[in-house]
């Protein structure tokens, strides 16, 4: 009958450990897979330099991370959400409904989005217009909107080789997708004049609503298999390009810089992406990276504030720090961010 005793003791142990599990002593982070490498570099250095345990960093995408962030306040929820875009009004509202009200927004720096293709393939020099003409579901031909007829890059721009269009772009749960839509597709939509055309025919109660509807029409992409949404990480995009040499993928600058032996980068509006050209603002497709902290968890979860402060410290996120070495473009206004974190300034306080 020893196994009966075993069962009893096992259950007791489980119950005892369950009740002992009161305080979480490490910071929990989740969110953008673009921010993940930076967050893990900081987490590692944090664990080495402080007496706090190394924070746990999970990925999953900005939207997924913010969703978990907004689940509520308490030890069973995450403390920090990483995002490669700013938090949306809708998400702030969802957060507030779950009781997550005081959110500290921290901008850690800027990141470039690059377009890269197989190293042995053709080289490209893109403009936003090219991407709009290649991927939009409707383009303007002779003053009318028609379903996108372009099959090869030569159809888009005679200067390009006749390579079939095959784009691997981030899925909608990634913050990178939004930047791609705003800075590339929408910019191309406006440049070709399609935006004005759509706006003229747009329906809506107000000018603002009309503009919103037109923007939405602009960024709707074709669904005939030419543009493929990648819901996974950049490694998946890389694998797709590896198996399809015609493919052109959207990557973060840091990812490209780690895989220069397999990828060649395309210029955008004549500018080669690099941390320098992004810092000066010449390279157009860049976006700020953020993380969001629950103020309610500061003082409850040990090391949370110290981690947030360490993340934006000069020696970490500054121009000579390890993050910048990995591919982050340092924020010129870092000192203001440092002050805001030190003061625990929540969103809505000052901005």
């Amino acid at each position, binding site marked *: *009958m020893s*196994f*009966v005793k*075993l*069962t009893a003791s*096992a*259950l007791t*142990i*489980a119950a005892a*450990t*369950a009740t*002992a*599990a009161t305080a*979480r002593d*490490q910071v*929990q982070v*989740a969110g953008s*897979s673009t921010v*993940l*490498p930076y*967050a*893990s*570099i900081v*987490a*590692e*250095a944090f*664990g*080495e*330099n402080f007496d706090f*345990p*190394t924070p*746990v*960093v*999970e*990925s999953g995408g900005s939207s997924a991370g913010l969703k978990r962030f907004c689940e509520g306040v*308490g*030890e*069973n929820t*995450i403390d920090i959400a990483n995002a490669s875009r700013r938090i949306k009004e809708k998400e702030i509202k969802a957060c507030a409904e779950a009781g997550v009200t005081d959110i500290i927004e921290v901008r850690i720096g800027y990141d470039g989005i690059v377009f890269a293709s197989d190293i042995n393939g053709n080289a490209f020099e893109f403009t936003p217009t090219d991407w709009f003409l290649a991927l939009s579901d409707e383009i303007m031909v002779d003053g009318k909107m028609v379903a996108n007829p372009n099959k090869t890059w030569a159809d888009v721009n005679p200067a390009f080789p006749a390579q079939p269009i095959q784009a691997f772009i981030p899925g909608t749960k990634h913050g990178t997708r939004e930047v791609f839509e705003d800075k590339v597709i929408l910019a191309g939509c406006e440049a070709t004049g399609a935006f004005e055309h759509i706006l003229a025919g747009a329906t809506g109660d107000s000018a603002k609503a009309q503009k919103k509807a037109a923007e939405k029409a602009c960024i709707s992409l074709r669904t005939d298999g030419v543009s493929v949404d990648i819901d*996974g*990480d*950049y*490694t998946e995009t890389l694998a797709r390009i590896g198996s399809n040499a015609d493919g052109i993928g959207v990557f973060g600058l*840091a*990812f490209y*810089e*780690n*895989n*220069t*032996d397999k990828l*060649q980068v395309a210029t955008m509006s004549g500018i080669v992406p690099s941390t320098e050209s992004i810092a000066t603002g010449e390279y157009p497709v860049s976006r700020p990276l953020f993380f969001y902290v629950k103020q309610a968890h500061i003082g409850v979860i040990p090391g949370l504030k110290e981690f947030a402060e360490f993340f934006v410290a000069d*020696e970490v996120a500054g121009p000579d720090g*390890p993050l910048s*070495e*990995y591919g982050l473009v340092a924020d010129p206004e870092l000192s203001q961010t440092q002050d805001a974190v030190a003061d625990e300034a929540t969103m809505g306080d000052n901005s």
Partner: protein
Amino acid sequence: MTDFSPSSTPPTSVQTSLLTLSDRTKKRNANERRFKAYGIAAIAVGLLMLLVLVVTIFGRGTGAFQQTFVTLDVELLESKLDKTGERNIEDIERISTFGYAPLVNGAMSAAIEQHGVDTSLKSKQLAGLLSKGAVAQLRAYVLANPQQIGETVEFRFLAQSRVDGYLKGRVSRDSIENDKNISAAQLDVVDALVAAGVIEKSFNLDFILGSDASDQRPEAAGMGVSMLGSFFMMLVVLALALPIGVAASIYLEEFAPKNWITDIIEVNIANLAAVPSIVYGILGLAVFINYMHLPMSAPLVGGLVLTLMTLPTIIISTRAALKAVPPSIRDAALGVGASKMQSVFHHVLPLAAPGILTGTIIGLAQALGETAPLLLIGMVGFIASNAPETLGEGLLSPNSAMPAQIYEWAKRADPAFYERAWGGIIILLLFLVTMNTVAVVLRRRFERRW
């Protein structure tokens, strides 16, 4: 029937002999041969697949067990580490890892000078050949041995992943053309230092015993801590799934009446065994973390989730093992006056034990290789916890698991992590092969057939 003689059955019109095969027999024999050939072909295809898998895994993964090291003499300058000179541990702790960079730079330059390597690179670029973890290694040493400040100590640092890749043949001068992490001039220095014996490749125990490292230092990442995570999860699974599973099967098999309720239970157990494992992850998140408030990323929660997943497997195999014990054993026990419980625990259970253990080990092996449910309870990610020291810490402090660690590495940007993912698969496979072998051996040695 008794009056049987060959003459009573007259020979049929066609004369046949047993020695010459009829067409029908030939056809049947050919069919049999063909079927055997199909079978052998099927096995051959299976073996070929296995061979391809094993060759790929070992071909790509063995590199991870070797690592490039740089041996340097570092002068632990008092002026940098302890300005007061009082060896006060709090003062020394105040110097962060960033403050150790000049020491590493200096040591690297000194080594270049000592071995007469001609280069125009600056000391920072030279130190770039080392892992970013070198400063942390140095700091940990100084904090542990503050009395050594002021001395010159020999350290064995990891080389950065590109240098390691260069020595392993993954990185070549062509492939780094656009790489800003390393330059051809740096590789020239590497060649010279390899010749001087400063840089060498050797077996890397830290890959097996160490913890995960951030994206910037793939060279320092190891499986050890996630292996412990898997170990603690298996401990939970064993402690819960085995007793619960065995108790449930004994009751169902030996005591429960056969009616529609037990039928429904039986159908449900078979159903649960087929439920996709991610469902158990969702359940675990809802029940163990959100309702019971157990900590996130803890092996205890992982173990509980995997218990749910393994339980049906164990119940089904245990019931099969109990069923295989012939009823005559039970009848004999009952016949000499044993109670039902005595007959089960003294006679049936010992005879069924090998089968139960085999089923349990196979269930554990299945749980060991499971990633999907861990995704939802926060065990997949950058979890570089140090090795837990106590049982409670092992169960409750955040940790990863072996398959989760492999998945995590396969996602990362630096190709050096990819090699480690394959290396991790080798370690995981070794565990699985061992467990399955033990299961087969147990069955062979102790199982009784009637």
